């Protein structure tokens, strides 16, 4: 309801929002005494200058893509789920716990089992939010927001206890068994296959959204609750559906991060991922397939930011500035103006 968007003029508006935020960023860089063109060039070089760098960018994009397409689905249904942050953390812990508890020697089943553990954990955490929201009529944003903090602390608690590595002096799990490590499977790039999986799943979500009855019902519910009631769709069922799906996707994102990047569960491994998932969902106009370039954009920014800092001396936190500004501009440019 709050995100009913005028479809026809959307792409130019989002492009304008991105351009504006890059412009602001350039101005800031110039003000800090650096050449914005050199800075952006260094960033681009760091993000896509070599296959290795591009692989890193893909890996960084993966959790945003997975969780962001789930968030897009929720927002489409008018369910403002900002709980991806917690669902990713719980998903990572779920995958790690599964991998450590049931070690399997052959890679494929081991990976599938661990990722399934992550997805189930993320979904279960979303189910907690959905049930409190639906059973007790608590605003979904408040529930998902508050549960994020509980989730992160729960994972820390687990790392301080059963999941932790003894004597590490740092909150982290033991190294994952080698069979569950995600292979660097994309030819020529130093990337795990997570991004490809994300693209496939985003395509699946897009199909769900546009080609299935459930997708139609959730779009109706998102556009108008009275219309959904009139059409005979159950808003509760729709809410459960999108929450469980987006929870599973966020959990999967956490699992892939643990198995494919960190290779162990580390405290704070997913800090800010869930909030960035909201950014890319909006940037992708809540269209799962458009979340792919949006996630890639953020991933490239982050991969490139370190080399921008190294080569030009512009602090890498510039990325968050661009992300925040983009989000604000997209919000201002695309939300409908009047309830006609």
């Amino acid at each position: 309801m709050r995100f009913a968007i005028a479809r026809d003029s959307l792409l130019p508006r989002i492009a304008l929002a991105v351009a504006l935020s890059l412009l602001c960023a350039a101005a800031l860089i110039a003000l800090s005494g650096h050449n914005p063109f050199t800075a952006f060039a260094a960033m681009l070089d760091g993000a896509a200058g070599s296959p290795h760098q591009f692989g890193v960018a893909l890996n960084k994009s993966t959790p945003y893509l997975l969780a962001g397409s789930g968030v897009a689905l929720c927002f489409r249904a008018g369910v403002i789920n900002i709980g991806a942050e917690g669902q990713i953390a719980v998903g990572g812990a779920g995958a790690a716990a599964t991998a450590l508890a049931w070690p399997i020697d052959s890679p494929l089943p081991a990976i599938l089992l661990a990722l399934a553990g992550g997805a189930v954990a993320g979904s279960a955490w979303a189910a907690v939010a959905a049930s409190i929201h639906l059973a007790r009529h608590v605003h979904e944003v408040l529930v998902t927001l508050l549960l994020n903090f509980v989730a992160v602390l729960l994972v820390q608690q687990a790392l301080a206890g059963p999941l932790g590595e003894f004597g590490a002096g740092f909150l982290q799990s033991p190294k994952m068994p080698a069979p569950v490590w995600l292979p660097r499977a994309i030819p020529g790039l130093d990337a795990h296959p997570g991004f490809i999986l994300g693209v496939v799943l985003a395509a699946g979500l897009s199909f769900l959204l546009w080609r299935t009855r459930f997708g139609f019902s959730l779009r109706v519910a998102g556009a108008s609750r009275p219309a959904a009631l009139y059409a005979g769709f159950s808003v509760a069922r729709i809410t459960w559906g999108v929450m469980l799906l987006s929870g599973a996707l966020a959990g999967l994102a956490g699992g892939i991060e643990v198995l494919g990047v960190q290779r162990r569960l580390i405290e704070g491994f997913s800090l800010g991922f869930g909030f960035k998932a909201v950014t890319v969902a909006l940037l992708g106009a809540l269209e799962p397939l458009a979340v792919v370039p949006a996630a890639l954009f953020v991933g490239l920014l982050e991969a490139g930011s370190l080399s921008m800092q190294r080569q030009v001396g512009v602090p890498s936190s510039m990325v968050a500035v661009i992300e925040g500004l983009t989000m604000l501009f997209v919000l201002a440019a695309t939300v409908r103006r009047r309830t006609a």
Partner: protein
Amino acid sequence: MVPLLEMRGIVRTFGAVRANDGIDLDVAAGRIVGLLGENGSGKSTLMKLLFGMLPPDSGTIIFKGRELSGHRPAEAMLAGLAMIHQHFMLIEAMSVVDNVMLGWPAAGKLLRRAAVANQIRGASARFGLDLDPDAKVANLPLGRRQRVEILKAILRGADLLILDEPTSNLAPAEVAGLLTILRRLREEGRGIVFITHKLPEVLDVCDEVVVLRAGRVAGRAPVAGVSRAALAEMMVGRDTTHAHSPDPRPPGAVRLAVRGLRGPGLAGVEFDLHAGEILGVAGVDGNGQIELADTLAGLRRGEGSIVLNGQEIARASVAARMQAGLAYLPADRAQTSLVRAMTIAENFGLRDHAGFLLHPAARTAHAKELMTAYDVRAPGPQTVAARLSGGNAQKIVVGRELDRAPSVVIAHQAAWGLDPGATRFVLDRVVDLRNRGAAVLYISSELEEVLAIGDRVAVLSGGRFAGILSRDKIDLGQIGLWMAGQA
């Protein structure tokens, strides 16, 4: 007598509609003027112009000897006007005294709560308002909430009070209390405009009455010399010749049997609806129309029995009722029966439930057929519904609902706000369907429309049917009295 308010030659148009077409209205101090008229006769527009919520196209407003023009509500209030809306402008979570103090300069920048509470007690005693300053508005019955609004007007020193349908939400005992309060205000020399549909109240409390019809003054008279029947006639008019009158035909079997339907807004509706029959439901808005339509269609829950083609559906889901042959054209097209952000094709398929997958090509093709069959004028099936005119949008709803060949149709304000061509189209389709044996419940606040289309006419009043007349026994006077709340 010097009039408190003089409105002269007030004109206001909305597009092609002349909502106010040269209206004169005088109100003297110490007089209660009843403003009568059906929905859409121009009463609300006239009062909005007076209160500065809309600017008039032409005409003059003189209040207390001073011309008001280009004013806004805040200035109208300062000048001594007070408007008591049908929907109260109160903060339910707050106390009476907080509501009175809100926006009232005399309450002080640092609120003088105790002093204001005393003033409330004083005014409450003087006018018999019976209000406790510390009571929370949410805990007050509607009648008391209205008194809070009146209290606000009194304390702010309003010389002219406009009450918009002040009795529509009140219980009979509360109405009596309100009329007593209005008489006391009159004694104090304040002027009152009393907007209503209900004749008994007009005759009871008003000094004179002005009847509006189609944006013009249809009649004005001192209450003392006018009969109930004459007023009812002035209000509904005589002109009921209509092009769509269906041929009479014998009613078929009972399709829909409703017994003891109760719930918020409904107080025991009962009727039988037969195959090949249109039952027109007239009545003033707010007497349970939305509740009746939504409850029959399954969008709201109510108590009682609804039997559709021999099958009890009072507990069935919306989808199950559709499956059983029920079609519904709701009054709210902006939010309920259409999704404005979706395409025509999607809106035609809004209530489809069959199959897991959508078939866009088939849906587009079907939408094209329906667009032709139901004369939806738009570039194509992929046009977004928000771009359509009201008439074309409603044709989508009509096409979607009627094309399924339903056995029972619930139509609520189906032609409301449409241009004459679209109105005629919608009514013709409904009559077609009835001729093919469907049963139709046609709810509308446009009396002429209901009289034209109905094989029988019922009047919904206070959440129940005040009575049902068959087409050959229509008695306008009786219908007017039913609509005006006289059983």
